[in-house]
């Protein structure tokens, strides 16, 4: 079933969560301006990519000339989690006409996916839910990042003193929210990532330290689980 009611229910459910994500969008918009993205570039990125953490990572790597290969590869790694999210919702979406299923999946974010997952436990699940929830997310994401980008240009220059560190703080905050419920298990993979990234950053040119650290950390996690399986 895919109906207007489900769509509206998703939109209503997602609104408070989408609104609470708006300050993050504002901050991302400000940082994008400092990193040199135009209003149109950020608007295009928010509308076409529509994935906050990966956009923040890309903006932190933004330089002149833009390291296109490193950014696209890192974006892929950051967003690979969508594959598993998409798998869990598949039973409800594979039966839909392809445009509805694949259209809805464009709007799958961490938030809209989580809300939809909870919704599927109801007796009567309406697949319109994901589109409604995701579209509200989408509208507020575009609005907040664009407003942040435009108003950020008016903030006087001294705020750029801490720009390099704004990214570190943002990533630390994201890392803490990722670690919830599994703090001890993350020491080996994340520690490996840190060591490899610092070494690669010191020894190699460009942004490759991000990919090398990320892959090393993920593989260290696999090795750890295999060792204790």
């Amino acid at each position, binding site marked *: 079933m895919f109906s207007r009611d489900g769509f509206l229910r998703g939109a209503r459910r997602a609104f408070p969560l989408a609104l609470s994500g708006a300050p993050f969008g504002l901050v991302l918009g400000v940082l994008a301006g400092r990193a040199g993205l135009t209003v149109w570039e950020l608007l295009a990125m928010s509308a076409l990519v529509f994935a906050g953490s990966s956009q923040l990572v890309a903006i932190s790597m933004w330089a002149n000339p833009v390291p296109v290969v490193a950014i696209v590869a890192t974006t892929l790694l950051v967003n690979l989690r969508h594959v598993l999210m998409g798998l869990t919702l598949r039973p409800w979406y594979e039966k839909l006409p392809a445009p509805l299923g694949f259209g809805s*999946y464009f709007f799958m974010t961490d938030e809209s996916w989580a809300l939809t997952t909870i919704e599927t436990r109801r007796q009567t699940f309406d697949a319109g839910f994901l589109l409604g929830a995701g579209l509200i997310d989408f509208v507020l994401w575009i609005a907040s990042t664009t407003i942040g980008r435009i108003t950020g240009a008016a903030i006087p220059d001294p705020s750029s003193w801490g720009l390099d560190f704004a990214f570190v703080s943002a990533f630390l905050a994201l890392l803490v929210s990722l670690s919830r419920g599994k703090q001890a298990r993350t020491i080996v993979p994340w520690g490996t990532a840190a060591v490899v990234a610092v070494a690669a950053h010191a020894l190699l040119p460009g942004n490759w330290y991000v990919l090398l650290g990320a892959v090393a950390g993920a593989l260290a996690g696999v090795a750890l689980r295999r060792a204790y399986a």
Partner: protein
Amino acid sequence: MRLPELHLGVLMREIPLITILGMAAVTYATRASGLLFGRRFPRWFDEVLEDLPGAILMSLIAPAIIVAGVKGVVAAIATLAVALVLKGNIVVPIMTGILVITVLRHL
């Protein structure tokens, strides 16, 4: 036949747009492939994904803190403390980090 539009300068100017389109393509691919392929991913794929997001963030953070030096370490600890106390909040820890590093750099 001349192709004046295809010289390197034009291509260089479009790199931001090419980057954004590339990001959009790989991101939608990650969203669609769960629906498209179903359970045809190897088992190690799930395992690698378990720690990947955190490992990426850590790879971005660690060298930046080293570059920022002792002040960076102090600001990072302050950010971390606030983030751990205000579970799930993103914006207040960011503001804390910016404030602490700015103050430390201008002492």
